[in-house]
């Protein structure tokens, strides 16, 4: 009797398989964009604007051209003669590639130099003489819509103000009626400060236009190579089949490497003009000051409550500061992304959201940084409003959330903003979290400590979020539907290669996609190689961001494996000389139902596909699947943080950080935990120290690592992760849900709620992030809320 395969041993679902990627990274043999050298390659550097808003009077690049080793100096004027000074964005706006009439944010690209060596290119940039005429600067939405505000986008024919969009969703009248019935109305104003994903590796590209073949190859830091190929075809007016985008190893993405940046476009044009490869690698200052930032949204939130704590309605108004160009990569139908996923975990009958987006003299962006298309903002606002409401009601934080949760038997559940959640065990997750943190004990300790003048605090945050954009009815980017794909080729010896339209940047796809194939076909994971990122070979996909890869590309991997298995079944029947109905499957093997010892392995079926096909069957064992997800997936999490705040300094220390994540079936538990810990660290960073702000002149504070504070191993707390609660996704082929961004989405509120809980009794309802010690000290000493980003000190 043959031994059944052990799925964990062969590296199937649930195996904490060691990562395939590690082998090259630990040897320093990764292949990141800046590691690549092509023969004849030149180097490009960008000259950036020092001013936030100014008319360009003149640009004199003559001294730059004179430096030995300089091949080309590009300005906006030169780009304009080729219709390339402006490009379309992924949000149906336009964005300057190189400034022509004005500069609209500090750090905006004004010119670039291509030279033999990056040092020479930098030298030349310094010799470009730009004369500016300063204009009044707008640094927040309030200024953007104030009377007399200058129109930033005077390049757009029908733009007469700084408003990009006004959007709404939900039921205004119904919400109004519910508020009229409320016993208590809880209000909160919040600012989610501007932040930046700041992966360690900066953005860059090597554009290689080959005149002999008319083919453009671009190596670049992109999370979405196929989207880039389409964008380059559009912008550079080159035919799509003659463009090859290769995304090699990426040193972190977090949404920063989705947009199309001017540097990419300039390197492409330069390569076409010079007929040589042109490499552009930005420096960290360029990355922080000009590339896709995150957040910068203001909230006015109101919650209508019954006296016993039941939430009757939610009303939200958000103001989002998008910077100088509306360039977010997000589903085109939703102007403020998935902000309306807020409160999806709570059973609320009616809600209304209005959202406004405005321009400002800052770099473009907003949707980035593990945000799942603004769900970070949605869930932060949600949990801060929940905390405030419980406080206003005098209710226990955990009890208030629990009584308003959507219960297990209420699925599928339509949220008041129109989402359909399909699964979860919210109460159980809360139970696990509270037990792990020792909730009742902590409350006792807190009271005892307070009597001695010590401030302990506990903060709870929950989130469920829509991951896996998305079904073609509702989701598209620039009209392209957000499906994804997987191609699987099984070779004659039963080894395989799978390629998908996703593009990991550390999530471990080379390890996990093989595990899905292993689960479906019983081929050991080590016999399966995974490739992503080359548009010439990868099937079309929309890339990796917004935690969509496991839900969509992973589903495609499962579906294509099943197509292969269906064909293998026919081969098995042929080999076993029985009809297909008599064939059964177990992991890695087909056998005859009535004689289980008679069977063939999947490897034997593979060989037969090349050497012993039944009559009329197409040879080979290869296929492709494109997956249009029926719905998003809805992981759920509870994050609980305990802190101690020093009343003399405002410094706070994390005592415990408990995370209970229910993301359905976990392909590789080790990798899932890694994702959660990474997200929790981002959450801690945003809550404690990370932010970008601007002074009144639009000078960016936070444009380098001296000012933009990231936590190190020293500050970052330890994490206690729980995986007991598993609610499989009812529609995903392997029951998996997204997970990559959950902790960044739900985490920040847990830290903020904990600190505010510690200073409960001062009457402080809010301190906006980052909760730097001086801000906590200010709140607790003066007993007042601290609103907005930290102000920039000036000398006057």
């Amino acid at each position, binding site marked *: 009797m043959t031994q059944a395969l052990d799925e964990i041993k062969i590296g199937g679902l649930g195996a904490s398989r060691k990562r395939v990627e590690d082998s090259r990274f630990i040897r320093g043999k990764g292949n990141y964009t800046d590691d690549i050298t092509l023969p004849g390659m030149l180097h490009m550097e960008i000259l950036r604007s020092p001013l936030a808003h100014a008319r360009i009077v003149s640009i004199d690049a003559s001294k730059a051209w004179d430096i030995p080793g300089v091949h080309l100096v590009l300005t906006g004027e030169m780009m304009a003669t080729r219709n390339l000074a402006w490009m379309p964005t992924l949000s149906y706006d336009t964005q300057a590639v190189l400034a022509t009439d004005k500069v609209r944010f500090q750090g905006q690209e004004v010119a670039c130099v291509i030279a033999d060596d990056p040092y020479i290119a930098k030298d030349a940039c310094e010799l470009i003489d730009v004369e500016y005429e300063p204009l009044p600067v707008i640094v927040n939405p309030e200024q953007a819509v104030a009377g007399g505000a200058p129109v930033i986008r005077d390049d757009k024919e029908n733009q007469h103000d700084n408003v990009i969009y006004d959007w709404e969703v939900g039921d205004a009248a119904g919400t109004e009626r519910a508020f009229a019935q409320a016993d208590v109305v809880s209000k909160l104003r919040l600012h989610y400060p501007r932040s930046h994903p700041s992966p360690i590796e900066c953005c860059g590209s090597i554009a290689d236009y080959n005149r002999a073949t008319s083919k453009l190859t671009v190596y670049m830091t992109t999370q979405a190579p196929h989207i880039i190929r389409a964008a380059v075809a559009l912008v550079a007016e080159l035919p799509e089949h003659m463009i090859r985008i290769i995304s090699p190893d990426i040193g972190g993405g977090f949404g920063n490497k989705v947009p199309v940046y001017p540097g990419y476009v300039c390197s492409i044009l330069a390569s076409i003009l010079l007929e040589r490869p042109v490499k552009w690698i930005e420096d960290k200052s360029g990355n922080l000051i000009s590339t896709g930032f995150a957040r910068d949204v203001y909230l006015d939130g109101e919650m209508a409550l019954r006296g016993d704590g039941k939430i009757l309605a939610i009303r939200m108004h958000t103001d989002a500061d998008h910077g100088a160009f509306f360039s977010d990569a997000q589903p085109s139908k939703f102007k403020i992304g998935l902000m309306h996923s807020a409160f999806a975990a709570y059973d609320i009958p009616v809600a209304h959201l209005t959202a406004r987006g405005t321009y400002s003299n800052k770099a473009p962006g907003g949707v980035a940084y593990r945000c799942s298309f603004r769900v970070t903002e949605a869930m932060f606002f949600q949990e801060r409003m929940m905390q405030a409401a419980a406080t206003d009601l005098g209710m226990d934080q955990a009890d208030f959330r629990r009584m308003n949760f959507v219960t297990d038997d209420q699925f599928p559940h339509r949220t008041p903003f129109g989402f359909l959640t399909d699964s979860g065990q919210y109460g159980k997750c809360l139970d696990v979290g509270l037990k792990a943190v020792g909730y009742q004990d902590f409350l006792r300790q807190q009271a005892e400590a307070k009597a001695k003048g010590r401030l302990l605090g506990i903060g709870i945050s929950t989130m469920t979020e829509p991951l896996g954009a998305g079904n073609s009815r509702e989701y598209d980017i620039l009209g392209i539907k957000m499906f994804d794909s997987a191609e699987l080729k099984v070779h004659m010896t039963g080894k395989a290669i799978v390629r998908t339209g996703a593009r990991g940047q550390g999530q471990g796809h080379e390890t996990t996609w093989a595990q899905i194939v292993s689960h479906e076909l019983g081929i050991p994971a080590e016999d399966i190689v995974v490739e992503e990122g080359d548009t010439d070979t990868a099937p079309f996909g929309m890339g990796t961001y917004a935690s969509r890869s496991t839900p969509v590309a992973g589903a495609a991997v499962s579906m294509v494996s099943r197509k292969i298995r269906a064909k293998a079944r026919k081969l098995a029947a042929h080999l076993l000389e029985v009809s297909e109905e008599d064939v059964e499957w177990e992991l890695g093997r087909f056998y005859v139902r009535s004689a289980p010892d008679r069977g063939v392995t999947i490897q034997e079926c593979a060989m037969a596909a090349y050497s012993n096909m039944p009559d009329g069957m197409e040879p080979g064992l290869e296929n492709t699947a494109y997956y249009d997800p029926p719905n998003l997936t809805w992981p759920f999490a509870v994050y609980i943080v305990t802190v101690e705040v020093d009343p003399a300094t405002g410094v706070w220390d994390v005592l415990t950080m408990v995370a209970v994540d229910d993301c359905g079936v976990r392909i590789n538990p080790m990798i899932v935990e890694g994702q959660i810990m990474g997200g929790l660290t981002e959450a801690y960073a945003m809550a404690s120290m990370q932010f970008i702000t601007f002074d009144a002149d639009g000078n960016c504070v936070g444009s380098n690592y001296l000012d933009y504070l*990231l936590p190190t191993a020293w500050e970052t707390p330890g994490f206690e992760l729980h995986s007991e609660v598993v609610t499989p996704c009812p529609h995903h082929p392997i029951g998996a849900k997204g997970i990559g961004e959950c902790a960044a989405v739900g985490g920040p509120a847990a830290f903020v709620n904990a600190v505010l809980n510690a200073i409960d009794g001062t009457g402080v309802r809010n301190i906006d992030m980052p909760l730097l010690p001086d801000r906590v000290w200010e709140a607790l000493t003066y007993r007042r809320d601290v609103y907005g980003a930290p102000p920039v000190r000036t000398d006057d």
Partner: protein
Amino acid sequence: MTMVYEDHGDEAADDVPVRRIRFTVNGARKIAEVEPRLLLSHLIRRGLELTGTHMGCDTTNCGACTVLVDGRPVKSCTMLAVQADGHEITTVEGLATASELHPLQEGFTEEHGLQCGFCTPGMMMAAKALLDANPDPTEEEVRWALSGNLCRCTGYQNIVKSVLWAADKVRSSANTG
């Protein structure tokens, strides 16, 4: 590095200063001719084509470029190549022997201490300097030793576990060796 320029007949091209330096990298003795302003990290990545040492910032904060100079951890972006004259440099490529990975490399794989891999070489070099000086560090000592190396992916917890795993292995093979 020695450079080839377009000759525009401009005397400025004759003025590019160059210094000759001798140093050892991963046990191999080298000679290089470099501009005085060339950063050590650029000599390593472009001159020596050892691209395992990465550059992630321009303010000496991130530590991705950490190498060992005479066994001490140095951010190679904040050292000039000319300062390496007469010194021994170790990069990530010099961690493994011909037949074996370094225990740190094994530890990072065993304990899932990396995701995108970009900070990893710098982390391992900083960790190696720690373990060479302190073979039995506490978790706190590990976190302090790595506080000059930023990571955005892992949350550091598994990095600490990786270093402690390696410390265990180094100590136990020292005991049995």
